[in-house]
């Protein structure tokens, strides 16, 4: 290998095959993966869970699980063949040239060591000790924009918030100045606002460091935001590769096309059509694949696809597609019809009316106001979306409705005009079955010792009051209504995939014909294609049964798709409440504005302008005046600090809690939108001027604004 080539490619995988040994058989997880990451390049790897993304990351450093082995191909890191390294050389390579950042920073940091110890350790490995190592560690923390690094050094990981922990993890990864940085789902599980900060940080660091990045994520929008090139992995094979812009705007493999269609995009709503889904299943690991791996799920597949494995076709411009019919990929027919029954806007009296609801927890003697003076109303067949960062009181509010925790004295919850008792135990049978929930994590929500038949029959018996023959008939109907089959009744939850489990949970909630179903992040643990199917199911059930949803989600796209009304919560207070379209299109509360701008978008047109500093304050010690003033980018002065604004009606049904008058908010926000457009144009001009080299969005925007 020649010197210049080494400099050009940070990572080169050639025909890499990896197998896991399960039940005395080697099962292929990666099949002849070819992948090259140039020096300084950010490469994104996307695909559903189980397609081998993390295995790629682990095999780069030959860090395989006990039953995993590299069965073929080669890995070159900085031109060095990783496969040929002996123990010591491999250890050095791992220490010096590669770093990894994992999904859960809470688990990546040692809980019983101070940050200082964990950071200096890395420098000590490189031979720097004592004060010098400490100075370097502080410099590292400064680099990842941690304010007050000296005090952070003395803390334990649990004393830092999730975002701070991930910054420390990134600082540790960058400490040895690696040539290759592997980020495995680094922002999954973080709030959108924190995610935006971490992504900005990674983007800024890219310019300061020479590291190449392998960015693994199931979130297409995040990858689109961060990466120059992207590879789509399916069943352990690279099925499409190209520049991010090309792959996401002009996909050439039916799988990529289908994945992109699963996302609710461009403010799509449930009454405008169902989301598309991907039929069938990912082949199991080690499956014997004849022909194209995606053929079974592809509506374009022909005889040729089933018998002849497609090669990686070169489409020019560095684009590759493993599809015989890559030129027709975008004509992939929909798997799920888009049409929806027209629903007339309801004028029925509200099914739910909440007035002045409060919840105060006692925390070490201090009152902690988890929910403060919340009033909302909801009509039958409508969805109320609850959005806000974690700690904003969304889940507590849901639990108050369900009666799982009793609210403070004073507020009221009315269901169909009748007062609901604060405690579940004192509610009538009819009231209990009328308000049900679909939990976030089906593994926790379904009893793992019971069969699906037991789980659903019990619900029908208790909530539907059914027995014997009628129960069996209804059970069958219920199972079919969530698109499960009779085969699923006999099994235990662990034998089902995440999506199927969530269907069982939905069926259970619907067993007693509920009036209101709380959906607490029901799709956050699912892949996009499964998420689309679950969202469609929820929308279908709603239009059929006229049930109302309280929908909680971090994903604003998902909330927008399903919701008719939105309540934005911050520290237990409603900051903005109104019809979904009004809240999303604006003018909005500065907090809503910040939340919206934090969401990475697939088409890369977003502005990275509004970033909230730091974390949500503690509800035990909320800021005086407007709860949001400590982080508000539009703070107008002392009044924000001293006086809590009222929730005032901006338009009919749309209320905002802000001292800035509505007209002024409208003016400010439209002003910036025009700026943004100009910015976008200048950006294009500049990037052309630089010979197609892309610059980081944030810097350009910072430059223009300052």
């Amino acid at each position: 290998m020649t010197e210049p080539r080494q400099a050009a490619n940070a990572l080169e995988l050639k025909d890499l095959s990896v197998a896991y040994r399960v039940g005395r058989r080697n099962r292929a997880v990666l099949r002849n993966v070819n992948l090259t990451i140039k020096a300084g390049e950010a490469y994104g790897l996307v695909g559903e869970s189980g397609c081998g993304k993390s295995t790629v990351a682990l095999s780069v450093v030959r860090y395989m699980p006990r039953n995993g082995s590299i069965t073929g191909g080669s890995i070159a890191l900085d031109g060095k063949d990783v496969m040929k390294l002996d123990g010591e050389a491999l250890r050095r390579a791992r220490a010096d040239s590669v770093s990894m950042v994992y999904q859960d920073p809470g688990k990546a940091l040692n809980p019983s060591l101070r940050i200082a110890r964990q950071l200096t350790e890395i420098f000590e490995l490189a031979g720097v000790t004592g004060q010098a190592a400490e100075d370097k560690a502080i410099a590292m923390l400064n680099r990842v924009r941690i304010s007050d690094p000296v005090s952070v050094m003395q803390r334990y990981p649990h004393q830092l918030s999730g975002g701070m922990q991930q910054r420390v993890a990134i600082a540790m990864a960058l400490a040895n100045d690696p040539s290759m940085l592997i980020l495995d789902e680094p922002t999954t599980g973080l709030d959108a606002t924190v995610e935006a900060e971490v992504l900005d940080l990674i983007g800024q660091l890219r310019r300061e460091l020479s590291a190449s990045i392998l960015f693994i994520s199931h979130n297409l929008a995040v990858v689109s935001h961060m990466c120059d090139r992207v590879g789509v992995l399916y069943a352990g094979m690279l099925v499409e590769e190209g520049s991010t812009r090309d792959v996401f705007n002009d996909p050439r493999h039916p799988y990529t096309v289908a994945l992109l269609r699963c996302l609710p995009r461009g403010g799509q709503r449930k009454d405008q059509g169902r989301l598309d889904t991907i039929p069938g299943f990912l082949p199991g690991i080690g499956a014997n694949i004849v022909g194209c791996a995606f053929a079974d799920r592809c509506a374009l597949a022909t005889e040729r696809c089933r018998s002849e494995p497609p090669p990686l076709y070169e489409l020019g411009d560095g684009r590759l597609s493993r599809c015989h019919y890559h030129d027709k990929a975008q004509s992939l027919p929909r798997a799920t019809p888009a049409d929806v029954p027209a629903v007339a806007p309801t004028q029925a009296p509200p099914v739910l009316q909440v007035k002045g609801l409060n919840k105060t927890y006692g925390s070490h003697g201090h009152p902690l106001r988890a929910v403060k003076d919340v009033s909302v109303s909801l009509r039958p067949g409508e969805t109320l979306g609850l959005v806000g960062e974690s700690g904003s009181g969304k889940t507590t509010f849901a639990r108050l409705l369900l009666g799982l925790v009793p609210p403070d004295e004073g507020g009221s919850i009315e269901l169909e005009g009748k007062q609901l008792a604060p405690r579940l135990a004192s509610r009538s049978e009819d009231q209990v079955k009328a308000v049900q929930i679909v939990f976030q994590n089906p593994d926790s929500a379904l009893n793992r010792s019971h069969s699906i038949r037991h789980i659903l029959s019990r619900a029908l018996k208790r909530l539907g009051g059914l027995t014997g023959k009628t129960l069996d008939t209804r059970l069958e109907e219920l199972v079919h209504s969530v698109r499960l089959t009779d085969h699923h009744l006999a099994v235990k939850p662990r034998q089902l995939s995440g999506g199927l489990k969530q269907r069982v949970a939905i069926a259970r909630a619907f067993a007693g014909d509920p009036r209101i179903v709380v959906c607490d992040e029901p799709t956050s643990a699912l892949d996009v294609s499964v998420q689309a199917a679950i969202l469609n199911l929820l929308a279908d059930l709603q239009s059929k049964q006229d049930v109302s949803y309280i929908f909680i989600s971090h994903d604003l796209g998902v909330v927008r798709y399903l919701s008719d009304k939105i309540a934005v919560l911050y520290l237990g207070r409603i900051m903005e409440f109104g019809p979904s379209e009004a809240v999303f299109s604006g003018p909005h509360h500065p907090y809503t504005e910040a939340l919206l701008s934090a969401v990475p978008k697939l088409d890369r047109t977003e502005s990275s302008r509004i970033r909230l500093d730091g974390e949500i304050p503690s509800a035990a010690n909320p800021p005086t005046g407007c709860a949001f003033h400590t982080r508000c980018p539009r703070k107008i002065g002392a009044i924000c600090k001293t006086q809590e604004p009222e929730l005032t009606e901006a338009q009919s049904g749309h209320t905002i809690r802000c001292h800035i008058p509505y007209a002024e908010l409208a003016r400010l926000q439209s002003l910036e939108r025009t700026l943004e457009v100009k910015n976008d144009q200048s950006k294009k001009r500049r990037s052309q001027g630089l010979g197609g080299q892309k610059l980081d969005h944030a810097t350009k925007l910072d430059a223009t604004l300052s």
Partner: protein
Amino acid sequence: MSAADTPVGMPASSAPDTAQRSPWGEVLHSLARSGTFLTGLFILLFWAICALFGQCFVPYDPLASDIINALAPPAADHWFGTDQLGRDVFSRVIVGSRDILTVAPLATILATIAGTALGLVIGYFRNIVDDVISRVLEAFMAIPVVIIALLAIVALGTSKVTVIVVIGLSFAPIIARTVRSAVLAERELDYVAAAKLRHEGAVHTMFIEILPNVIPPILVETTVRLGYAIFAVATLSFIGFGIQPPSPDWGLSISSNYGMIGGGFWWTVLFDALAIASLVIGVNLVADGVHGAFND
């Protein structure tokens, strides 16, 4: 069920094929491959066969005395020698497993049932119920088994039932504590909230919803307790509160013969002691294996 049976539109996770085995199947599979467990099981089975059928195959009647042959050292006609009444030690050791292997397991079962019920109640209700009952149990655990036995025997008289009840009740709080901590973790899961949202009663939630999910720690604790129960039975018999003569019970034999060690008649005590040791080791190996199988 295979993945192919599921309807269109639902991608499955590509779970590895091991997931097809049921959780209990997986535990059995790993037990069958655990040397620790199999060794322990072999020792247990050996003693179980001795307890059940020992009477049929021992060379001598374990109770028949033969004064002329008293205190004969181990030899071809008496492999383990004879005791001070001339009874065959080998036959006595084999048949002596019977009482301890009835009393100790029954005591453990009693402890498990009582402890599980208690643990479910205090773990499920928490708060005041937990505070009160837990303190009572801790106070109870502070009293040595021997003292409780002494009191019980004074009140109830000596019998196997007394021994079972004494050991069973004194081990119940320990099992209750294990079950309580498992229940505390379990009750935070959403399926318990879902049961509340169906207005299920406390008994249903405890015994139908939660209990099946806390079986693994209960099983592990039960096997560990069995080892201690064997030891406790032997101790009680040794000090005269346990199994009564003329049973050839090990603890009892050691108690009536240990004075002879000074005279050089070691065989009257050694083999009974080894029998107790081997049984306890066997049970502990099984407990280790079970623990490993559930926590892999």
